């Protein structure tokens, strides 16, 4: 069976888009990042548990780490714009290391299914107590609106069942 992954200019476009999106997040340009999302965007980071082989799914339904719409994503950005977001003041140094980008056609002609590997690094404070790494498999739906790609949904499937970090303050 041939690999349905797209390998053409679309792949290049998506790679550039993801790198640009990561730059916005890593630099804290969150209003610009919000503008990359659709009005009906869904952002989900479910909880993972260790399951035996053959179990239906390791991901739970409900009580997720993130379960956001445009409204709650906007609230997250608004909070960081207040003077009182102690968890990110001083700000963490974050970096999205993205690899394994795969693009597939969606059912809808104006959408693309994008998978990427994420190694997310976060360092905080003046020592290494909070040098945290989160690894995940990201499943995105990008939608072309007026020629521009926008994030319509992202599901982040964590590799970790217990997060090594005291909080998640950023979009993965």
């Amino acid at each position, binding site marked *: 069976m041939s690999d349905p992954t797209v390998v053409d200019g679309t792949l290049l476009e998506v790679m550039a888009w993801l790198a640009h999106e990561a730059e916005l997040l890593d630099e804290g340009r969150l209003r610009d990042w919000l503008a990359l999302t659709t009005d009906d965007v869904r952002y989900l*980071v*479910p*909880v993972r*548990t*260790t*399951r*035996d082989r053959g*179990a239906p799914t390791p991901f*739970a*339904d*409900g*009580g*997720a*780490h*993130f*379960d*956001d*719409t445009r*409204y*709650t994503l906007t*609230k*997250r950005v*608004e*909070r960081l714009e*207040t*003077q*009182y*977001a*102690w*968890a*990110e003041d001083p700000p963490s140094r974050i970096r999205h290391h993205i690899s394994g980008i795969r693009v597939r056609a969606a059912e809808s002609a104006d959408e693309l299914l994008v998978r990427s590997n994420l190694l997310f690094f976060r360092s905080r404070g003046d020592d290494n*107590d*909070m040098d945290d790494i989160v690894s995940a498999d990201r499943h995105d739906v990008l939608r072309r609106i007026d020629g521009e790609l926008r994030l319509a949904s992202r599901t982040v499937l964590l590799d970790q*069942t*217990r*997060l*090594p*970090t*005291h*909080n*998640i*303050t950023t979009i993965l």
Partner: protein
Amino acid sequence: MATTETPNATLDAACASIDAGEFMLPLALFSDPELFELEKERVFARTWNFLAHESEIPEPGDYVLRHIVDDTFIVVRDEEGVVRAHFDACRHRGMSVCRAEMGNASHFRCPYHGWTYKNDGRLIGIPLEPDAYGRGNVDRATTGLLAIPQLQIRNGFIFGNLDPAAPSLAEYMGDYAWYFDFYTDRSTSGLEVLGTPQRWILNSNWKVLAENFMGDAYHSPTSHKSVVEIGLAGVADPKKRKAGIHFNAGGIGAGGLMRTDPKFHGYPPELVEILRSGWRPEHWHLADALGLMPVSGGMFPSLAFLWLNATIEEDGELIPFFTMRTWRPIAADKIEMISFLAVERDAPAWFKEQTSRAYSVAFGSAGLFEQDDAENWSSISKTAKGQLAARHRFNVRMGLTPGNEPIVAALDDWPGPGTAYPVAFAEHNARVFWQAWARQMTNGLHGV
């Protein structure tokens, strides 16, 4: 057993201040590694630890893997429907027989030498037994998985105790059971855990947050100011000091109740009806006639509740959510935080979806409230480690006059057991926490 049996300066200093009613406590409580070793034995090995909720293991064979500090238990519903907690260690060489966090199994088989146990714990298979051991030489009846010494369930909450001689859960709770039921016995079909608990590492001594959850409303206007500013939720208004109640009961439980606006945390009519028919009349009276809803609270040493609300859509409607949490101490400066979302089982599906989203945006690892709590709490144990820190005392005196009397007297007409103060901000509950801790650490010699 006196504190001098295993001398610990931090413990002694703390007990002296607690017993004197002074409550200026050594900061080393949040960092002393030897103290932590004592706590493992004197607190967590002798009290009731919340393990799981029955709704997580509804069917025969369903199990979850849970922990009391370094001891791991398979919390399972056996084929007869009985809930059990087996120490996860093969009786042969101590290998874990259950390495998935959850699932369904009729048996647990050790991957090392193949000993096999039925899910009720009975040993039912030893490979090559006649040649290896001789028939009948291994006493099956006494070689099953070790059962947790005590297991009790209240309102679906499964608690385990490593001390076979510890008082029963009901005896331990005492008058706190009345409040525990106000928080959790509120639906004729019970509560249901949605999803699986979030787990994350927090570099904090467990007592920092345990004390907070017992009823620290004072931190909210500061820690959670950003959340109020963006209109996600309300917190106690510093000006409305009389809008809250701090209660404690049984010496081991405490919490905060608030006159919420909207009433019932904003539960829609369908859910209010569930509460009305689920709660005992005296609990319905508190919420309906007095307008008081539980907001925070906990039971010593490692169970806490938050019952709050948050907006999840532009319309600004406040969606209630209920979370219980526990913590697994790993070191004097590290815990694993375990956060559950629960809802009334008969709530409509649309409410379950909403409450889940409200919980996630407010609490949990990425919750906009919880992020700042984690930031605060992860600093304290670090500060508490140093030499100068060892000489520092932290202040647990809010609500007391210099003569150690309550500034605002307890209510004499409170329609519930224990003690209730009509204050939104006070540290009565923190003092109850420290007294419970002192009693537990010294077998009742201190903290009375």
